[in-house]
C-alpha cells in the first residue's frame, strides 16, 4: 500500500510494507509522509548551493510532474509498495519510511533516482520493502 497526498503546495508520499486487510473490518493508521518535492521559488540561492554542492544539474518540475514521477517509481518497483521521499534542502537527510510506520533516515543503501524535466529537478529515493 502506498500513498501520495498534496496539501495544495507540497507533494507527500509514504509506503507501508505489503499489508493484508479484510473486508468488514475497521483499521486505524497513521501515515507518516515524506515530502516528495518541495516547490521552491525559482532562483532561490539555497537551492543553487545545495544542488551544486552535490554536483547535481537541476531544472525545475511542477507538482503534476512530480506526481507522475512518483508513480513511475512505483511502477519501477514492479507495483510493490514504494516510498519516494525527498527531504527539504536544509537538512541533507533523506527520509524513508519503514514498514512498521516509523520514520528512518538513510543516505546509503538506497538507489537514488534523479529526475530531470524542463523546469525543476528533485532527488528521490527508491525504497523496497
Amino acid at each position, binding site marked *: *500500500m*502506498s500513498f501520495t*497526498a498534496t496539501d495544495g503546495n507540497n507533494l507527500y508520499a509514504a509506503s507501508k510494507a*505489503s499489508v*493484508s486487510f479484510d473486508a*468488514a*473490518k475497521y483499521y486505524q493508521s*497513521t501515515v507518516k509522509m515524506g515530502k516528495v518535492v518541495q516547490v521552491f521559488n525559482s532562483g532561490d540561492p539555497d537551492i543553487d548551493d545545495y544542488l551544486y554542492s552535490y554536483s547535481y544539474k537541476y531544472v525545475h518540475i511542477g507538482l503534476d510532474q512530480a506526481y507522475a514521477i512518483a508513480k513511475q517509481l512505483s511502477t519501477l518497483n514492479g507495483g510493490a509498495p514504494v516510498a519516494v521521499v525527498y527531504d527539504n534542502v536544509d537538512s541533507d537527510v533523506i527520509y524513508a519510511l519503514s514498514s512498521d510506520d516509523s520514520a528512518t533516515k538513510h543516505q546509503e543503501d538506497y538507489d537514488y533516482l534523479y529526475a530531470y524535466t524542463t523546469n525543476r529537478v528533485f532527488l528521490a529515493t527508491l525504497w523496497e520493502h
Partner: protein
Amino acid sequence: MAALALMTAACSNDDNDLTTQQPQKAEGITITAQLAPKTNGATTRAVSDGTNKIVAEWAVNEHIAILYTKDATQYAADATITDVDGSGAATITFTVEAGTPDDTPCTLVYPYDAAKDDHTGVKDAATLLAAQDGTLSANLDVRVGAGTIWTSTPGLTVSTQPQAQFAIFKFTTKTSDGGATIDVTSLTVTTGGQDYVITPASATSELFVALPPSPARP
C-alpha cells in the same frame, strides 16, 4: 463490523424464514422482513467512528436493492427500512413484480445505489470507491448477500447473509517524524494496482477510506 444478518419477522426457530406480512397485490407482491442489527445503538447514523472501532447501524429510510430475474428481465426491488427498534433490528418492506414465481433467487445489495444500473449485481469496487470524500458514511459500508424470494407465501429466505465488501480505514496523515499532522487536500491510496483518490471538501489530516480486501502476500 458485525456481519449483517437477516432473521425472521416473527418469532420462529428458523432464522432464515421470513413470514408473510401482506397478501399478493395485482401490481406486485409486497414483502415485509426484518434485518438483524448491524451492531447496536442509535438509529440516526448509518456508520460512526467509535473508539478503535466502527459502529455500523441500520437507519430508517435507508434503501437496499433486492435484485432478481423474472421472465429473463432483471429487476431491482427497492427495500426501504421503515423502522429500527431499540435493539438495532430493522424492518424492511419491498415489492416484487406480480407473477414473480416462488423460489426466485435474489441478491441483496446495500446501499441501493451500490447495485449496478442493469440490476445484475453490485458495482465493481473501483467504481464504488472512485469518488470518496474522506468522510464516514453508509456509502463505505457496501454489503452483499443472497437469498430466495417466495411469493405464494410472501417471504424472503437468506442463503448467504449480506457481508461487508470493504475494509474501512481511518488514516491520519503526519509528517515523516510523526510530529505534526498534515492537512491534505487530496490523498491517493494505491493498493492492488488500483488508485483510490480521496478528495475531502476541505483540507484535513483525518480521512476515512474504504478499500477492497487485500489478501496476504504468499
